[in-house]
Protein backbone atom coordinates (compact mmCIF):
# COMPACT_ATOMS: atom_id res chain seq x y z
CA UNK A 1 0.00 0.00 0.00
CA UNK A 2 2.74 2.46 1.02
CA UNK A 3 6.34 1.86 0.09
CA UNK A 4 9.42 4.05 0.70
CA UNK A 5 12.59 3.20 -1.26
CA UNK A 6 15.74 5.04 -0.23
CA UNK A 7 13.90 8.30 0.25
CA UNK A 8 15.99 11.31 1.24
CA UNK A 9 14.95 14.86 1.82
CA UNK A 10 17.15 17.88 2.20
CA UNK A 11 16.12 21.40 3.16
CA UNK A 12 18.67 23.91 1.90
CA UNK A 13 18.72 25.73 5.27
CA UNK A 14 18.81 22.66 7.54
CA UNK A 15 20.52 19.93 5.54
CA UNK A 16 19.33 16.33 5.38
CA UNK A 17 16.19 15.66 7.38
CA UNK A 18 15.55 12.19 5.95
CA UNK A 19 18.28 9.81 4.82
CA UNK A 20 17.68 6.69 2.75
CA UNK A 21 14.41 5.79 4.42
CA UNK A 22 12.92 2.49 3.23
CA UNK A 23 9.88 0.62 4.53
CA UNK A 24 6.77 -1.05 3.25
CA UNK A 25 3.31 -0.95 4.83
CA UNK A 26 0.96 -3.70 3.61
CA UNK A 27 -2.70 -3.12 3.01
CA UNK A 28 -4.60 -3.29 6.28
CA UNK A 29 -1.44 -2.93 8.37
CA UNK A 30 -1.22 -0.58 11.37
CA UNK A 31 2.08 0.98 12.40
CA UNK A 32 3.46 3.69 14.65
CA UNK A 33 6.06 6.14 13.48
CA UNK A 34 8.14 7.37 16.37
CA UNK A 35 11.30 9.27 17.18
CA UNK A 36 12.45 12.39 19.00
CA UNK A 37 11.19 15.70 17.79
CA UNK A 38 13.13 16.77 14.73
CA UNK A 39 13.81 13.15 13.77
CA UNK A 40 11.89 13.65 10.52
CA UNK A 41 8.40 12.37 11.38
CA UNK A 42 6.65 15.49 10.11
CA UNK A 43 8.76 15.60 6.98
CA UNK A 44 7.92 11.98 6.25
CA UNK A 45 4.22 12.79 6.63
CA UNK A 46 4.54 15.82 4.40
CA UNK A 47 6.17 13.70 1.73
CA UNK A 48 3.32 11.17 1.83
CA UNK A 49 0.69 13.92 1.69
CA UNK A 50 2.75 15.77 -0.93
CA UNK A 51 2.82 18.98 1.07
CA UNK A 52 6.56 18.67 0.45
CA UNK A 53 8.16 17.05 -2.58
CA UNK A 54 11.56 15.42 -2.89
CA UNK A 55 13.53 14.21 -5.88
CA UNK A 56 15.51 11.51 -4.12
CA UNK A 57 14.23 7.97 -3.77
CA UNK A 58 10.87 6.46 -4.56
CA UNK A 59 7.55 6.64 -2.71
CA UNK A 60 4.76 4.38 -3.95
CA UNK A 61 1.21 4.62 -2.66
CA UNK A 62 -1.51 2.38 -4.09
CA UNK A 63 0.72 1.73 -7.14
CA UNK A 64 1.23 5.44 -7.76
CA UNK A 65 4.67 7.03 -7.83
CA UNK A 66 4.20 9.99 -5.49
CA UNK A 67 7.54 11.58 -6.31
CA UNK A 68 6.86 11.83 -10.00
CA UNK A 69 3.15 12.59 -9.59
CA UNK A 70 2.10 15.76 -11.40
CA UNK A 71 0.83 18.56 -9.12
CA UNK A 72 -2.50 18.52 -10.92
CA UNK A 73 -2.99 14.85 -9.89
CA UNK A 74 -2.19 15.44 -6.21
CA UNK A 75 -5.80 16.13 -5.11
CA UNK A 76 -6.98 12.78 -6.49
CA UNK A 77 -4.35 10.86 -4.56
CA UNK A 78 -5.08 12.81 -1.37
CA UNK A 79 -8.69 11.68 -1.64
CA UNK A 80 -7.46 8.14 -1.03
CA UNK A 81 -5.82 9.19 2.25
CA UNK A 82 -7.48 10.25 5.48
CA UNK A 83 -5.41 12.83 7.35
CA UNK A 84 -5.60 13.47 11.08
CA UNK A 85 -3.67 16.24 12.83
CA UNK A 86 -2.52 17.01 16.34
CA UNK A 87 -4.27 20.39 16.23
CA UNK A 88 -7.34 18.80 14.57
CA UNK A 89 -7.38 21.44 11.80
CA UNK A 90 -11.14 21.90 11.97
CA UNK A 91 -12.98 24.88 10.53
CA UNK A 92 -14.25 26.56 13.66
CA UNK A 93 -16.83 28.67 11.86
CA UNK A 94 -18.52 25.56 10.41
CA UNK A 95 -20.66 22.99 12.12
CA UNK A 96 -19.45 19.48 12.87
CA UNK A 97 -21.56 18.27 9.93
CA UNK A 98 -19.92 20.71 7.49
CA UNK A 99 -16.45 19.83 8.74
CA UNK A 100 -16.97 16.12 8.25
CA UNK A 101 -18.70 16.71 4.90
CA UNK A 102 -15.77 18.70 3.47
CA UNK A 103 -13.95 15.79 1.72
CA UNK A 104 -17.22 14.67 0.14
CA UNK A 105 -18.15 18.21 -0.95
CA UNK A 106 -14.71 18.52 -2.50
CA UNK A 107 -15.25 15.26 -4.37
CA UNK A 108 -18.58 16.42 -5.70
CA UNK A 109 -21.02 14.06 -3.98
CA UNK A 110 -24.71 14.89 -4.05
CA UNK A 111 -26.23 16.29 -0.87
CA UNK A 112 -28.22 13.16 -0.02
CA UNK A 113 -25.16 10.94 -0.28
CA UNK A 114 -23.13 13.40 1.79
CA UNK A 115 -25.72 13.47 4.60
CA UNK A 116 -25.88 9.66 4.68
CA UNK A 117 -22.10 9.21 4.80
CA UNK A 118 -21.47 12.00 7.31
CA UNK A 119 -23.97 10.50 9.73
CA UNK A 120 -22.39 7.07 9.29
CA UNK A 121 -18.92 8.50 10.02
CA UNK A 122 -20.14 10.46 13.07
CA UNK A 123 -21.87 7.33 14.31
CA UNK A 124 -18.61 5.42 14.07
CA UNK A 125 -16.75 7.94 16.24
CA UNK A 126 -19.67 8.26 18.67
CA UNK A 127 -20.67 11.82 17.86
CA UNK A 128 -24.05 11.24 16.27
CA UNK A 129 -26.38 14.00 17.44
CA UNK A 130 -23.66 16.65 17.53
CA UNK A 131 -23.84 17.53 13.82
CA UNK A 132 -25.16 21.05 14.47
CA UNK A 133 -22.55 21.94 17.10
CA UNK A 134 -19.50 24.08 16.41
CA UNK A 135 -16.06 22.54 17.06
CA UNK A 136 -15.08 25.01 19.79
CA UNK A 137 -18.06 23.99 21.90
CA UNK A 138 -16.72 20.43 22.01
CA UNK A 139 -14.02 18.91 24.25
CA UNK A 140 -10.56 18.16 22.87
CA UNK A 141 -11.32 14.47 22.56
CA UNK A 142 -14.56 15.20 20.74
CA UNK A 143 -12.83 17.62 18.39
CA UNK A 144 -10.25 14.97 17.54
CA UNK A 145 -13.06 12.52 16.86
CA UNK A 146 -14.60 15.05 14.47
CA UNK A 147 -11.19 15.12 12.76
CA UNK A 148 -11.22 11.32 12.57
CA UNK A 149 -14.75 11.28 11.17
CA UNK A 150 -13.62 13.72 8.49
CA UNK A 151 -10.62 11.50 7.70
CA UNK A 152 -12.67 8.34 7.27
CA UNK A 153 -15.85 9.75 5.74
CA UNK A 154 -14.74 9.03 2.18
CA UNK A 155 -13.46 5.53 3.07
CA UNK A 156 -9.78 6.16 2.44
CA UNK A 157 -7.29 3.40 1.66
CA UNK A 158 -4.93 4.71 4.31
CA UNK A 159 -5.25 6.80 7.46
CA UNK A 160 -2.32 9.05 8.34
CA UNK A 161 -2.41 10.47 11.85
CA UNK A 162 0.16 13.04 12.97
CA UNK A 163 0.39 13.02 16.80
CA UNK A 164 -3.37 12.42 17.05
CA UNK A 165 -3.28 12.08 20.84
CA UNK A 166 -0.72 14.82 21.45
CA UNK A 167 -3.25 17.08 23.17
CA UNK A 168 -5.32 14.38 24.90
CA UNK A 169 -5.12 12.67 28.28
CA UNK A 170 -4.23 8.92 28.41
CA UNK A 171 -7.81 7.73 28.69
CA UNK A 172 -8.98 9.69 25.61
CA UNK A 173 -5.81 8.63 23.79
CA UNK A 174 -6.64 4.99 24.38
CA UNK A 175 -10.14 5.58 22.99
CA UNK A 176 -8.72 7.17 19.86
CA UNK A 177 -6.29 4.26 19.41
CA UNK A 178 -9.17 1.83 19.73
CA UNK A 179 -10.93 3.69 16.88
CA UNK A 180 -7.86 3.32 14.69
CA UNK A 181 -7.70 -0.40 15.37
CA UNK A 182 -11.31 -0.68 14.28
CA UNK A 183 -10.56 0.97 10.95
CA UNK A 184 -7.57 -1.31 10.51
CA UNK A 185 -9.80 -4.32 11.02
CA UNK A 186 -11.95 -3.32 8.02
CA UNK A 187 -8.85 -3.25 5.81
CA UNK A 188 -7.65 0.33 6.10
CA UNK A 189 -3.90 0.89 6.37
CA UNK A 190 -3.05 3.09 9.37
CA UNK A 191 0.16 5.03 10.05
CA UNK A 192 0.31 6.96 13.32
CA UNK A 193 3.12 9.34 14.19
CA UNK A 194 3.50 9.55 17.95
CA UNK A 195 6.14 9.99 20.62
CA UNK A 196 3.82 8.73 23.34
CA UNK A 197 6.04 5.77 24.26
CA UNK A 198 3.78 4.45 27.03
CA UNK A 199 0.82 4.33 24.66
CA UNK A 200 2.83 2.69 21.90
CA UNK A 201 4.29 0.06 24.20
CA UNK A 202 0.82 -0.89 25.47
CA UNK A 203 -0.34 -1.67 21.96
CA UNK A 204 1.41 -4.47 20.20
CA UNK A 205 1.87 -2.94 16.74
CA UNK A 206 4.73 -2.43 14.34
CA UNK A 207 6.90 0.57 15.27
CA UNK A 208 8.98 2.52 12.75
CA UNK A 209 11.59 4.52 14.61
CA UNK A 210 13.31 7.52 13.10
CA UNK A 211 16.54 8.90 14.49
CA UNK A 212 18.16 11.94 12.92
CA UNK A 213 16.43 11.26 9.64
CA UNK A 214 17.30 7.58 9.48
CA UNK A 215 15.00 4.65 10.09
CA UNK A 216 16.62 2.70 12.93
CA UNK A 217 13.97 0.04 13.53
CA UNK A 218 10.82 -1.42 12.04
CA UNK A 219 12.05 -1.63 8.43
Amino acid sequence: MLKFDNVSMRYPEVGDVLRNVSFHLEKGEIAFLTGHSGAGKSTLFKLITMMERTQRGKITFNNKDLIRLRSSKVPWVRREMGLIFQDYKLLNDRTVFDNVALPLVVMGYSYGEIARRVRAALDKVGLLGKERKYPLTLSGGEQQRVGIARAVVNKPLMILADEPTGNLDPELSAEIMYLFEQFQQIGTTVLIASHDISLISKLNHRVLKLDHGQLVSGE
Partner: protein
Amino acid sequence: MQQHKPRHNHNRVIEAKRNTKQTSRVGGDFSDKLRAYRDLHAHALFSSLGRLVAARVNAVLTIIVLSISISLACGFYLLVENAEQLTTDLETSNQISLFLRDDVSLASATRLANGIQLDPSVQAVKVITKEEALKEFEDFSGFGEAIKALEKNPLPIVLQVIPKNSLEDGQNIETLVENFKQAGEVDFAQLDLQWVKRLQLMIEVARVSVTLLGVLLGLAVLFITGNTIRLELHNRQDEIVIAKLVGATNNFVQRPFLYSGFWIGFFSGISAWFIVTLMMLVIKQPIEKLSMLYNSSFHLVFMGFFETVALILISAGLGVAGSWLVVHLQVRKIS
Protein backbone atom coordinates in the same frame (compact mmCIF):
# COMPACT_ATOMS: atom_id res chain seq x y z
CA MET B 1 -12.01 -2.60 -3.01
CA GLN B 2 -15.61 -1.38 -2.82
CA GLN B 3 -14.44 2.09 -1.94
CA HIS B 4 -12.78 2.55 -5.30
CA LYS B 5 -15.91 2.83 -7.35
CA PRO B 6 -17.05 6.39 -6.66
CA ARG B 7 -13.55 7.70 -7.12
CA HIS B 8 -13.21 6.21 -10.56
CA ASN B 9 -16.62 7.51 -11.47
CA HIS B 10 -15.57 10.91 -10.39
CA ASN B 11 -12.48 10.79 -12.55
CA ARG B 12 -14.61 9.75 -15.45
CA VAL B 13 -16.81 12.77 -14.95
CA ILE B 14 -13.82 15.03 -14.95
CA GLU B 15 -12.71 13.47 -18.21
CA ALA B 16 -16.19 13.76 -19.63
CA LYS B 17 -16.30 17.41 -18.75
CA ARG B 18 -13.14 17.96 -20.71
CA ASN B 19 -14.50 16.12 -23.67
CA THR B 20 -18.24 16.22 -24.08
CA LYS B 21 -18.05 13.60 -26.82
CA GLN B 22 -17.63 11.06 -24.05
CA THR B 23 -21.02 11.89 -22.58
CA SER B 24 -22.86 9.05 -24.25
CA ARG B 25 -20.35 6.47 -23.05
CA VAL B 26 -20.66 7.52 -19.44
CA GLY B 27 -24.44 7.33 -19.65
CA GLY B 28 -26.87 7.69 -16.75
CA ASP B 29 -24.11 7.87 -14.20
CA PHE B 30 -22.90 11.00 -15.93
CA SER B 31 -26.15 12.86 -15.40
CA ASP B 32 -25.91 12.11 -11.67
CA LYS B 33 -22.43 13.52 -11.54
CA LEU B 34 -23.43 16.44 -13.69
CA ARG B 35 -26.12 17.23 -11.17
CA ALA B 36 -23.56 17.02 -8.36
CA TYR B 37 -21.29 19.32 -10.37
CA ARG B 38 -24.14 21.77 -10.85
CA ASP B 39 -24.87 21.59 -7.11
CA LEU B 40 -21.22 22.34 -6.47
CA HIS B 41 -21.43 25.49 -8.59
CA ALA B 42 -24.74 26.53 -7.09
CA HIS B 43 -23.25 26.02 -3.65
CA ALA B 44 -20.22 28.15 -4.51
CA LEU B 45 -22.47 30.81 -6.07
CA PHE B 46 -24.71 31.16 -3.04
CA SER B 47 -22.14 30.54 -0.33
CA SER B 48 -19.99 33.31 -1.81
CA LEU B 49 -23.06 35.56 -1.73
CA GLY B 50 -23.64 34.50 1.88
CA ARG B 51 -20.07 35.39 2.82
CA LEU B 52 -20.46 38.74 1.10
CA VAL B 53 -23.53 39.41 3.26
CA ALA B 54 -21.62 38.24 6.33
CA ALA B 55 -18.76 40.65 5.56
CA ARG B 56 -21.26 43.42 4.83
CA VAL B 57 -19.13 46.45 5.63
CA ASN B 58 -16.19 45.35 3.50
CA ALA B 59 -18.40 44.31 0.63
CA VAL B 60 -20.47 47.48 0.70
CA LEU B 61 -17.39 49.71 0.81
CA THR B 62 -15.85 47.90 -2.14
CA ILE B 63 -19.08 48.03 -4.09
CA ILE B 64 -19.43 51.77 -3.44
CA VAL B 65 -15.91 52.47 -4.68
CA LEU B 66 -16.43 50.29 -7.73
CA SER B 67 -19.83 51.71 -8.59
CA ILE B 68 -18.46 55.24 -8.45
CA SER B 69 -15.69 54.27 -10.88
CA ILE B 70 -18.13 52.51 -13.17
CA SER B 71 -20.68 55.34 -13.06
CA LEU B 72 -17.95 57.85 -13.92
CA ALA B 73 -17.15 55.88 -17.06
CA CYS B 74 -20.84 55.51 -17.89
CA GLY B 75 -21.56 59.16 -17.22
CA PHE B 76 -18.88 60.32 -19.64
CA TYR B 77 -20.09 57.80 -22.18
CA LEU B 78 -23.62 59.23 -21.98
CA LEU B 79 -22.23 62.75 -22.24
CA VAL B 80 -20.63 61.88 -25.56
CA GLU B 81 -23.72 60.03 -26.75
CA ASN B 82 -25.83 63.08 -26.01
CA ALA B 83 -23.39 65.50 -27.59
CA GLU B 84 -23.32 63.36 -30.70
CA GLN B 85 -27.05 63.79 -31.01
CA LEU B 86 -26.43 67.49 -31.68
CA THR B 87 -24.58 66.73 -34.88
CA THR B 88 -26.89 64.10 -36.36
CA ASP B 89 -29.32 66.70 -37.73
CA LEU B 90 -26.48 68.64 -39.27
CA GLU B 91 -24.79 65.74 -40.91
CA THR B 92 -26.33 66.16 -44.36
CA SER B 93 -25.83 69.89 -44.56
CA ASN B 94 -22.87 70.75 -46.74
CA GLN B 95 -24.28 74.04 -47.86
CA ILE B 96 -22.41 77.28 -48.35
CA SER B 97 -23.82 80.43 -46.81
CA LEU B 98 -23.00 83.68 -48.60
CA PHE B 99 -23.64 86.69 -46.37
CA LEU B 100 -24.11 89.69 -48.69
CA ARG B 101 -22.98 93.20 -47.94
CA ASP B 102 -25.55 95.31 -46.15
CA ASP B 103 -26.04 97.71 -49.04
CA VAL B 104 -26.86 95.02 -51.61
CA SER B 105 -30.51 95.22 -52.72
CA LEU B 106 -32.80 92.25 -53.01
CA ALA B 107 -32.88 92.70 -56.81
CA SER B 108 -29.12 92.46 -57.17
CA ALA B 109 -29.05 89.59 -54.70
CA THR B 110 -31.53 87.71 -56.90
CA ARG B 111 -29.43 88.54 -59.95
CA LEU B 112 -26.33 87.16 -58.22
CA ALA B 113 -28.28 84.05 -57.22
CA ASN B 114 -29.34 83.44 -60.81
CA GLY B 115 -25.75 83.81 -61.91
CA ILE B 116 -24.55 81.29 -59.34
CA GLN B 117 -27.31 78.90 -60.36
CA LEU B 118 -25.68 78.67 -63.80
CA ASP B 119 -22.48 77.31 -62.31
CA PRO B 120 -22.34 73.60 -63.27
CA SER B 121 -21.14 72.57 -59.80
CA VAL B 122 -24.11 74.18 -58.05
CA GLN B 123 -27.28 72.22 -57.40
CA ALA B 124 -29.51 74.93 -55.94
CA VAL B 125 -29.43 78.48 -54.66
CA LYS B 126 -31.91 79.95 -52.21
CA VAL B 127 -32.25 83.62 -51.36
CA ILE B 128 -33.06 84.38 -47.75
CA THR B 129 -34.30 87.93 -47.45
CA LYS B 130 -33.54 90.14 -44.49
CA GLU B 131 -37.10 89.62 -43.23
CA GLU B 132 -36.94 85.84 -43.56
CA ALA B 133 -33.61 85.81 -41.78
CA LEU B 134 -35.03 87.91 -38.96
CA LYS B 135 -38.04 85.60 -38.63
CA GLU B 136 -35.83 82.53 -38.54
CA PHE B 137 -33.56 84.13 -36.00
CA GLU B 138 -36.51 85.07 -33.80
CA ASP B 139 -37.91 81.56 -34.00
CA PHE B 140 -34.77 79.62 -33.30
CA SER B 141 -32.35 81.71 -31.33
CA GLY B 142 -34.46 82.55 -28.31
CA PHE B 143 -33.30 86.17 -28.65
CA GLY B 144 -36.41 87.32 -30.57
CA GLU B 145 -37.40 89.94 -28.04
CA ALA B 146 -33.95 91.45 -28.01
CA ILE B 147 -33.95 91.70 -31.79
CA LYS B 148 -37.32 93.42 -31.79
CA ALA B 149 -35.87 96.13 -29.60
CA LEU B 150 -33.50 97.12 -32.41
CA GLU B 151 -34.66 99.89 -34.72
CA LYS B 152 -33.16 98.43 -37.84
CA ASN B 153 -32.91 94.81 -39.02
CA PRO B 154 -29.20 94.05 -38.62
CA LEU B 155 -29.29 90.85 -40.63
CA PRO B 156 -27.90 90.67 -44.17
CA ILE B 157 -29.40 88.93 -47.18
CA VAL B 158 -28.07 85.39 -47.32
CA LEU B 159 -27.67 83.12 -50.33
CA GLN B 160 -27.76 79.47 -49.45
CA VAL B 161 -25.83 77.56 -52.07
CA ILE B 162 -26.07 73.79 -52.20
CA PRO B 163 -23.24 72.33 -54.24
CA LYS B 164 -23.63 69.19 -56.38
CA ASN B 165 -23.07 66.04 -54.33
CA SER B 166 -20.07 65.07 -56.43
CA LEU B 167 -18.20 68.01 -54.92
CA GLU B 168 -18.84 67.02 -51.39
CA ASP B 169 -15.43 65.96 -50.25
CA GLY B 170 -12.94 67.26 -52.73
CA GLN B 171 -10.89 70.38 -52.93
CA ASN B 172 -13.52 71.68 -55.40
CA ILE B 173 -15.90 72.84 -52.74
CA GLU B 174 -13.18 74.99 -51.25
CA THR B 175 -12.46 76.45 -54.69
CA LEU B 176 -16.13 77.20 -55.12
CA VAL B 177 -16.20 79.08 -51.82
CA GLU B 178 -13.10 81.03 -52.87
CA ASN B 179 -14.82 81.97 -56.16
CA PHE B 180 -17.91 83.24 -54.36
CA LYS B 181 -15.73 85.37 -52.13
CA GLN B 182 -14.48 87.19 -55.25
CA ALA B 183 -17.96 88.55 -56.01
CA GLY B 184 -18.31 92.17 -54.91
CA GLU B 185 -21.66 91.65 -53.22
CA VAL B 186 -20.39 88.91 -50.92
CA ASP B 187 -19.25 90.10 -47.55
CA PHE B 188 -18.49 86.74 -46.04
CA ALA B 189 -18.71 83.13 -47.29
CA GLN B 190 -19.03 80.24 -44.89
CA LEU B 191 -18.88 76.56 -45.57
CA ASP B 192 -21.35 75.07 -43.08
CA LEU B 193 -19.92 71.61 -43.56
CA GLN B 194 -16.66 72.74 -42.02
CA TRP B 195 -18.40 73.57 -38.77
CA VAL B 196 -20.17 70.26 -38.71
CA LYS B 197 -16.89 68.52 -39.39
CA ARG B 198 -15.16 70.42 -36.62
CA LEU B 199 -17.92 69.57 -34.19
CA GLN B 200 -17.85 65.96 -35.25
CA LEU B 201 -14.11 65.81 -34.81
CA MET B 202 -14.38 67.41 -31.38
CA ILE B 203 -16.88 64.76 -30.41
CA GLU B 204 -14.59 62.13 -31.86
CA VAL B 205 -11.78 63.44 -29.66
CA ALA B 206 -14.14 63.34 -26.69
CA ARG B 207 -15.18 59.80 -27.61
CA VAL B 208 -11.60 58.56 -27.75
CA SER B 209 -10.82 60.30 -24.45
CA VAL B 210 -13.86 58.74 -22.82
CA THR B 211 -12.86 55.33 -24.16
CA LEU B 212 -9.38 55.73 -22.68
CA LEU B 213 -10.89 56.89 -19.41
CA GLY B 214 -13.21 53.89 -19.51
CA VAL B 215 -10.27 51.56 -19.95
CA LEU B 216 -8.49 53.17 -16.99
CA LEU B 217 -11.56 52.97 -14.77
CA GLY B 218 -12.08 49.37 -15.91
CA LEU B 219 -8.54 48.58 -14.81
CA ALA B 220 -9.28 50.24 -11.48
CA VAL B 221 -12.33 47.99 -11.09
CA LEU B 222 -10.18 44.98 -11.98
CA PHE B 223 -7.53 45.72 -9.38
CA ILE B 224 -9.86 46.90 -6.63
CA THR B 225 -11.80 43.65 -6.94
CA GLY B 226 -8.52 41.75 -7.02
CA ASN B 227 -7.39 43.42 -3.82
CA THR B 228 -10.68 42.75 -2.03
CA ILE B 229 -10.50 39.11 -3.04
CA ARG B 230 -6.87 38.94 -1.95
CA LEU B 231 -7.92 40.04 1.55
CA GLU B 232 -10.68 37.45 1.61
CA LEU B 233 -8.22 34.83 0.42
CA HIS B 234 -5.84 35.82 3.19
CA ASN B 235 -8.60 35.58 5.81
CA ARG B 236 -9.55 32.12 4.64
CA GLN B 237 -6.06 30.71 4.21
CA ASP B 238 -6.55 27.99 6.88
CA GLU B 239 -9.71 26.84 5.20
CA ILE B 240 -7.93 26.62 1.86
CA VAL B 241 -5.09 24.59 3.35
CA ILE B 242 -7.56 22.15 4.92
CA ALA B 243 -9.65 21.86 1.77
CA LYS B 244 -6.52 21.12 -0.25
CA LEU B 245 -5.40 18.50 2.28
CA VAL B 246 -8.66 16.61 1.93
CA GLY B 247 -8.23 16.61 -1.83
CA ALA B 248 -9.71 19.84 -3.15
CA THR B 249 -8.45 20.76 -6.59
CA ASN B 250 -7.24 24.28 -7.29
CA ASN B 251 -10.38 24.83 -9.33
CA PHE B 252 -12.56 23.84 -6.40
CA VAL B 253 -10.77 26.23 -4.06
CA GLN B 254 -10.81 29.01 -6.63
CA ARG B 255 -14.48 28.76 -7.51
CA PRO B 256 -16.08 30.57 -4.52
CA PHE B 257 -13.61 33.44 -4.90
CA LEU B 258 -14.42 33.80 -8.58
CA TYR B 259 -18.10 33.89 -7.66
CA SER B 260 -17.34 36.51 -4.99
CA GLY B 261 -15.72 38.59 -7.72
CA PHE B 262 -18.77 38.02 -9.88
CA TRP B 263 -21.15 39.23 -7.17
CA ILE B 264 -19.03 42.28 -6.35
CA GLY B 265 -18.93 43.27 -10.03
CA PHE B 266 -22.60 42.46 -10.55
CA PHE B 267 -23.82 44.59 -7.64
CA SER B 268 -21.39 47.39 -8.53
CA GLY B 269 -22.80 47.40 -12.07
CA ILE B 270 -26.36 47.64 -10.80
CA SER B 271 -25.58 50.37 -8.32
CA ALA B 272 -23.58 52.26 -10.99
CA TRP B 273 -26.69 52.13 -13.18
CA PHE B 274 -28.71 53.69 -10.38
CA ILE B 275 -26.11 56.40 -9.81
CA VAL B 276 -25.96 57.32 -13.50
CA THR B 277 -29.72 57.26 -13.95
CA LEU B 278 -30.17 59.39 -10.85
CA MET B 279 -27.63 61.94 -12.12
CA MET B 280 -29.34 62.03 -15.49
CA LEU B 281 -32.73 62.59 -13.86
CA VAL B 282 -31.25 65.46 -11.88
CA ILE B 283 -29.85 67.22 -14.96
CA LYS B 284 -32.80 66.31 -17.19
CA GLN B 285 -34.91 69.32 -16.19
CA PRO B 286 -32.29 72.05 -16.57
CA ILE B 287 -31.19 70.52 -19.89
CA GLU B 288 -34.73 70.45 -21.19
CA LYS B 289 -35.30 74.03 -20.14
CA LEU B 290 -32.14 75.03 -21.96
CA SER B 291 -33.13 73.03 -25.00
CA MET B 292 -36.56 74.68 -25.01
CA LEU B 293 -34.96 78.13 -25.05
CA TYR B 294 -33.12 77.09 -28.20
CA ASN B 295 -36.30 75.60 -29.63
CA SER B 296 -34.36 72.44 -30.08
CA SER B 297 -35.84 68.96 -30.21
CA PHE B 298 -32.97 67.74 -28.05
CA HIS B 299 -33.84 64.75 -25.86
CA LEU B 300 -31.56 63.58 -23.13
CA VAL B 301 -30.42 60.01 -23.87
CA PHE B 302 -30.42 57.63 -20.88
CA MET B 303 -28.86 54.20 -20.59
CA GLY B 304 -30.74 51.94 -23.01
CA PHE B 305 -31.71 48.33 -22.30
CA PHE B 306 -28.74 46.80 -24.10
CA GLU B 307 -26.37 49.35 -22.65
CA THR B 308 -27.62 48.50 -19.17
CA VAL B 309 -27.23 44.78 -19.78
CA ALA B 310 -23.75 45.38 -21.21
CA LEU B 311 -22.84 47.55 -18.23
CA ILE B 312 -23.83 44.88 -15.73
CA LEU B 313 -22.19 42.08 -17.72
CA ILE B 314 -18.95 44.02 -18.15
CA SER B 315 -18.88 44.89 -14.45
CA ALA B 316 -19.49 41.28 -13.45
CA GLY B 317 -16.88 40.16 -15.99
CA LEU B 318 -14.32 42.60 -14.59
CA GLY B 319 -15.10 41.31 -11.11
CA VAL B 320 -14.46 37.73 -12.15
CA ALA B 321 -11.31 38.70 -14.05
CA GLY B 322 -9.94 40.74 -11.14
CA SER B 323 -10.61 37.87 -8.79
CA TRP B 324 -9.04 35.37 -11.17
CA LEU B 325 -5.85 37.44 -11.49
CA VAL B 326 -5.26 37.13 -7.75
CA VAL B 327 -6.75 33.74 -7.01
CA HIS B 328 -5.17 31.90 -9.91
CA LEU B 329 -1.68 32.69 -8.65
CA GLN B 330 -2.30 32.62 -4.89
CA VAL B 331 -4.24 29.37 -4.63
CA ARG B 332 -1.44 27.47 -6.33
CA LYS B 333 1.04 28.86 -3.85
CA ILE B 334 -0.91 27.68 -0.80
CA SER B 335 -0.21 24.04 -0.01
